[in-house]
């Protein structure tokens, strides 16, 4: 039987508390499990507010942090067995990452294309300049750009949407089968946001790449995801089909989260917030 693309098996992450004598433990992620099927590429969304542990979970899947409990297997292989640089490179060529702030995700002192070339060289073994350029140009075309538009440009010359598309192209250079995107559109202007979101759909449908989409925004999650989990203080409180969960959440926290989403319908009815009791939920 073919192994799953990704198995997150009862994963926990505990941080030692700061301080010399106070050994308070902070449990950032607690007993999280889910799997992604290798034959059915999907957009799998992790929803959570700040402090929910969603970013910690993401870095464990990306193998930049080690779980303190449970295991993560990619294509049947435990990430804990990745030790050598060669193993890490092989892993990264299959699992790639996209970050939150496109304005910070490129070294401001260097042209943006060097990341693409490096990826082509390291992951795809392109020895010659021509091979690298072809590879990079291919990846850029997939996100609607071309090497001519990007070559030699500095990050400050580009918009957030363009930069994020370049970041996606950069992740695509090695033809990965999984991309982890941590809040990829929260810093992008509304008019450019959907371009990036639609790219994920294209990656899934046309290229067969699975996406783990991490966000706090339920509306984009509804728009793009196939399945989702909702996390609160390190735990998964609800999981399932994205549309079903968001249409009718069951866990009290999911319900509160769902109710807090501001819908544009408020403006239509002219009611907006007035319907709410002014008694707010004090934290």
């Amino acid at each position: 039987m073919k192994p799953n693309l990704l198995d997150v098996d009862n994963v926990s992450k505990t941080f030692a508390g700061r301080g010399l004598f106070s050994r308070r433990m902070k449990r950032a992620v607690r007993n999280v499990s889910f799997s992604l099927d290798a034959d059915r590429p999907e957009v799998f969304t992790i929803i959570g507010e700040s402090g929910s542990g969603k970013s910690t979970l993401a870095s464990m899947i990306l193998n930049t942090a080690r779980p303190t409990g449970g295991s993560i297997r990619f294509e049947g292989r435990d990430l804990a067995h990745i030790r050598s640089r060669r193993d890490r490179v092989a892993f990264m060529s299959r699992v790639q990452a996209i970050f939150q702030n496109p304005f910070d995700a490129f070294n401001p002192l260097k042209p943006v294309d060097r990341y693409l070339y490096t990826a082509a060289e390291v992951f795809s073994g392109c020895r010659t300049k021509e091979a690298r350029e072809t590879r990079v140009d291919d990846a850029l075309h997939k996100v609607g750009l071309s090497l001519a538009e990007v070559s030699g440009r500095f990050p400050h010359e580009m918009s957030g949407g363009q930069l994020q598309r370049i970041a996606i192209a950069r992740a695509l250079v090695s033809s990965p089968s999984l991309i982890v995107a941590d809040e990829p559109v929260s810093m992008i202007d509304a008019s450019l946001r959907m371009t990036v979101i639609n790219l994920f759909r294209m990656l899934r449908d046309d290229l067969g790449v699975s996406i783990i989409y991490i966000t706090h925004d339920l509306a984009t999650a509804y728009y793009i995801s196939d399945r989702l989990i909702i996390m609160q203080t390190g735990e998964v409180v609800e999981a399932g089909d994205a549309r079903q969960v968001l249409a009718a959440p069951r866990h009290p926290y999911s319900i509160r989260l769902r109710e807090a989403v501001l819908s544009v319908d408020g403006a239509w009815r002219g009611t907006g917030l007035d319907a709410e009791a002014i008694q707010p939920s004090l934290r």
Partner: protein
Amino acid sequence: MTLLHPAAASAAAEDDAAIPLLSVDRLKAYYRLKLFGIDREVRAVDDVTFAIGRNEIYGLAGESSSGKSTLIKTIAGAIRPPLAVETGSVCFNFSDGTRDIYRLTPRELGEIRWKRLSYIMQGSMSVLNPVRRIRHSFTDFALPHVPEKGAAFAERIGRHLERLHLERSVLDAYPHELSGGMRQRVAIALATVCGPEFIIADEPTTALDVIVQKGVLAMLRGIQRELGSSVLFVTHDMAVHANLTDRLGIMYAGRLVEEGRTRDLFRQPLHPYTRHLISSLPQIGDDTPKKGLEGSPPNLAAPLSGCRFHPRCPLAIDICRREAPPMVAVAPGRRVACHVVTASPDAVAPAMEEVRP
């Protein structure tokens, strides 16, 4: 002081109601930078005119580099080089007289601050002095502007906090001891304790979690209704505008492109940019495909000729490349700056059907 005939007085009051609380007239505010001998001029606010009446929440929407932050800095009279006002005026018609904010001495400006004009900033962590207890911040900000002193002043603050469902014990805390949502509530309490006539709110909920955001917005709305203040509310989040604001102005590249009642604007956006913003908004339960807009906002240091939206506009015609469209009233309380829309408003109507399935 002249004694007015009762009838005349009421006429004056009616007059008063007609005069908007804030009138911004043909305002231009530019950044002038000089570095290593290269001069640069960034036209962050370029010819903006609008007005805000009493007891309303006016929303201002726009993306990064739309100039909305600069606009509110200018309205708040918080101008520091390299930002400078080129032309135009910002007039407040407060209950005790009209003031042009750029004709005031620093002293006069200091007197209206907080008492009549207050401000809620983005990022509550950084707006509260980290080494000062909340109580002292209240004293610093409010004491000079209210009649109460001593115990009566403390009582006023206490009552105000209760009104906002905050415990009095927050007064003894330092900012870092409060959660993010709590700090933002305290910041709102601080901005409203003097009962100001006008409140500028700059992305006050952007950094907050969704659940907390809703509570803070409800609180802001409640206190506004109670005080009868006017609020200029700035955020890029259209969903917040939809739920909070009475009227809405859309900014693009330093200019106001559309303005109207929030409800009308969402129901029938006219400007192609507004239309895009609203139609591309993902909604739970809405399965229609949404599209992003091609291209990116123009560089304000080298503005385009004509309409600044034309390179990205699906409706652009020849004149859009040559002439900047003026803001034109197309209906009562509704203005839009678009050659195509003002030429044939009917052409826009069919497009509206796409917005709501």
